[in-house]
């Protein structure tokens, strides 16, 4: 599972042929050895004046902390841009950002919800992310966990079995999941909630602070990381 982070660049001068972003992630408070290896992407030229460039980076949910022997959801994102201009190249300063997370819980007091995701994005809705939610009491090895929903081909069976298993859990159902982003950034967020069983009651919508709405748009919560 990944999340997506748009990184943009605005040409401040003429003659720029290409812009690349070099980046790597390390555990918190650690520094990369750029010579050992890192990721590189070419930014897409979006045109305009001044010329805008963009790359949506696929970011990990966690990185492996070898010193401590565990994965960490908080990590450091190091990057710089390499600019090709007028037949030569130059690089920007090295930047780093602390990647942090925000856990959300949706309390469903009457057990109406059978499927729910956090629908969120860093900054604006350019690169939305879906984070399926689960009540922590739901069996970890179940084939009806939220993350398995999309590739479970018999959706009717999934809806039925999930609703039965949820019905056996004491209310409220506390659906939980996680968002990530750079410290200091804002996240926009909605919930996508569904009541998928019984079939005649099937209903789903996106929820913002003003109630049901379409995905994206202005009806969203804002989180400051």
């Amino acid at each position, binding site marked *: 599972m990944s999340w997506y982070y748009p990184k943009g660049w605005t040409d401040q001068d003429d003659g720029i042929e290409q812009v*690349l972003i070099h980046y790597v*992630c390390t555990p918190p408070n650690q520094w990369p050895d750029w010579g050992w290896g890192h990721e590189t992407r*070419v930014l897409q030229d979006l045109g305009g004046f001044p010329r805008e460039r963009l790359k*949506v980076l696929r970011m990990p949910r966690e990185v492996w*902390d070898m010193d401590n022997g565990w994965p960490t959801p908080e990590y450091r994102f190091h990057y710089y841009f390499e600019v090709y201009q007028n037949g030569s190249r130059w690089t920007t300063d090295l930047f780093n950002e602390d990647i942090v997370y925000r856990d959300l819980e949706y309390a469903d007091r009457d057990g109406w919800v059978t499927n729910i995701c956090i629908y969120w994005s860093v900054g604006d809705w350019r690169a939305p992310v*879906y984070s399926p939610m689960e009540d922590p009491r739901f069996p970890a090895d179940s084939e009806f966990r939220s993350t398995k929903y*999309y590739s479970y081909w018999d959706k009717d069976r999934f809806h039925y079995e999930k609703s039965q298993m949820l019905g056996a859990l004491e209310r409220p159902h506390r659906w939980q999941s996680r968002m990530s982003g750079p410290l200091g950034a804002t996240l926009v967020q909605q919930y996508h909630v569904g009541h998928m069983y019984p079939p005649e009651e*099937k209903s789903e919508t996106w929820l913002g602070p003003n109630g049901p709405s379409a995905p994206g748009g202005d009806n969203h919560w804002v989180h400051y990381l």
Partner: protein
Amino acid sequence: MGPLPLNAVQSLPVFGLRKTWVDPGPGIAMVQIQYTWTPPGGTADWANAEEMVLAPKAGSAGGRTAVLELPRFVEGAPDYSLHHFFFVVGGNDDAASPVFTEDIVARELAYTDAAGRYTSVGVVWSAVDASPESAVPNYTRTAMDGLSFQSPGAAPEDASIYEFVRAQPLPHVFRGMVWGVRGSEVRYGYHLIRQGSPNPAEDTESWDDDGGSGWTVRL
């Protein structure tokens, strides 16, 4: 604090491939793509599939798009199978498309530098898209014939290898690969680099895209 290279997150080189979707009618709220890959002819394991929401495409009624990051090699081979399906959320109904399986294949490109002007060559390439502004640029660093220590990569060469290159007989041939869906077209241009010259004023970098149109190759 010194470098801690072993803790850095590493992954195999990838390339970007754009996928698009056009709503077949009104009432579609969201479209998501689930994708994974296997060696050629393999069966998809969806348990660890990647997923991405297709963002509405500006200026396109019902158009949605996402750029998938796909590996350049699967189990060491440049050719493999890409499996994907779309999950479509409507007003009160959801549906999954059939699973599509495509062959991802690589094609080697060679640049011949007859005069020995360059120390390294890169290839900038993207799938030929209906709208040029949707092109997803990728980069391949080529390896020069005869330089056994070189290996292709996804970023420009930054080492000073002038003397090694000069020691090789002419012509110098630089080889690198591009990737895409079998049968599709890839447009490419060259990044021509001369570094480490005795006279630094002779160092140069230029982008040769055949006057803006680039060259194309069918995969």
